[in-house]
């Protein structure tokens, strides 16, 4: 078994996949943050309205 070839292939393939994943998660994460804040604001407003009642 040629471990040098295996690890060389493994390393460069992993690096390439991670680079692609980073781009996708960076863009997708921004949209998720916007939606998280929207949800939390709505939940807080709802809680405040319930407290007032």
């Amino acid at each position, binding site marked *: 078994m040629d471990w040098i070839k295996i690890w060389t292939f493994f390393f460069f393939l992993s690096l390439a996949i991670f680079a692609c994943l980073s781009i996708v*998660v960076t863009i997708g994460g921004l949209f998720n943050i916007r939606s998280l804040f929207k949800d939390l604001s709505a939940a807080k407003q709802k809680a405040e309205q319930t407290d007032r009642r």
Partner: protein
Amino acid sequence: MDIDFANLGFDTNFSILDWIIVIGYLITIVCIGVYIRKYIASATDFMVAGRGLKTFLAIATMIGTELGLVTVMYSSQKGFTGGFAAFHIAFAAAIVTLFVGISGFIVVPLRRLKVMTIPEFYQVRFGRDVRILGGIILALSGILNMGMFLKAGSLFVTGVTGMTSEFHLKIVMTVLLCMVLLYTTLGGMVSVAILDYIQFVVLSFSLVFASLMSIKYLGWDNIIDTVTREMGQSGFNPFDEAGFGWSYVLWMFFMGLVSCAVWQTAVIRACSAKSTSIVRRIYTLSSVGFLIRFLIPYFFGICALVFIANNPTLKGIFLSAEGKANSDLSLTAMPFYLSQILPAGFIGIISAGMLAAFMSTHDSYLLCWSSVLTQDVVSPWFKNGLSSKVRLFLTRVFIVAIGIFILVWGLWYPLEQDLWDYMAISGAIYSIGGFALLAFGLYWKRASRAGAYLALLTGFLALLGLSKVQQLCSPVLDPIKKVFKIEDDIPSAVIGLIVLALAIILMIVGSLLLPDKRGRATLMKLRSNLDGLD
């Protein structure tokens, strides 16, 4: 370990510009954390972000937490001492995480039960007393496990900045911890998620870039040739007994499972996800992150070895005649190497990312262990539980208390062993018993309280992985060593595997001999929750 590398002609590239980048970056993220406070309305928002994390943000936070500075430090040390063969650990972590993602093993039923912590599951499945014992063991193991984080962080700062005064480093680490405490107590899980996202973006791109720079600087053929010359076959073949060996590889597969599905800081991400389908997706996609969090630091460690081995002055300092490196020095090798090859400006960005990783790991761990103490050790004593406000207050008090403990422990406890050994042993106290309780509690109807107690307590035997503990227990262990013809210490991987097997056996035997007398209705209710839809 006071070595003035500048006097030896190895000035760091870390400049004033880099300091400005690091300080500006840290102040910005703390401000963001404080700003986010206005969105926190309940303990659930604080601990699991209102269970509102969607796929991409959850992946970023999971990788952001697991790609901590301590992981980078001990992984680069493994790459430095183990060469390319250490890649098998990254491979094992990725395969196991992918398996968890596809099968939903442990994490999906946990999310269905809507528990916040693993000991909370212990109560649902085995009873209140198991939850309290499990919570104490988990928190003890976890807090001890993070006890050395500050030490690793300070070694990184020393290596990168070229600072030699330990006094100044202690001040820096104290200031950093204060920032972490402020950030975590104010923002909770929401701010952790946002910080992890920012850290993910900065660190992932800078790590990929630094890897490419390393290959360009050292040359791929030179890297392969130097590792071959210094380590021979054991630098590549993980099954070579001169290096890692079969038992170590097997142990790493178990550690991979623990890291993603049993360790509370990773499981809390599953508990924070919006649905079980998102849990599966997070784990499937995060398998790449679990791979990279080890792979790139290993590669940096290998590059540090190549850089040092090809320089006679540095080789004399870092590597002894037999080629074995001193533990403290091998930890410093990677940051020292980065300080030599990365250009000013970029080194500031990667250091800021690393220090943010340091903060991120701390805030995630602080939040995690304080939640365990509040939810699983204090709260079960109150018949009607604790109100959301009291739980939030208690969690914040525990965060500060743990912070003070790790500051004292990290700054003053002398680390006289390999960092990875310390981490693995302190973690195994919990993870071995935890795995048995989760796997059997979720998938075996007959698992009982007695079996759970036995498995939890068996975890303490993992301490035998420490050579000093082995010496203390020599009257018991020596006859065993003679039978198996072992001359040195029993390897920690072998101890870990034996203790794991013992915990599983005791869980089965204890459950069969002493079954629970809980009503059928309770078990049926649990099963219907576990089998329920999203």
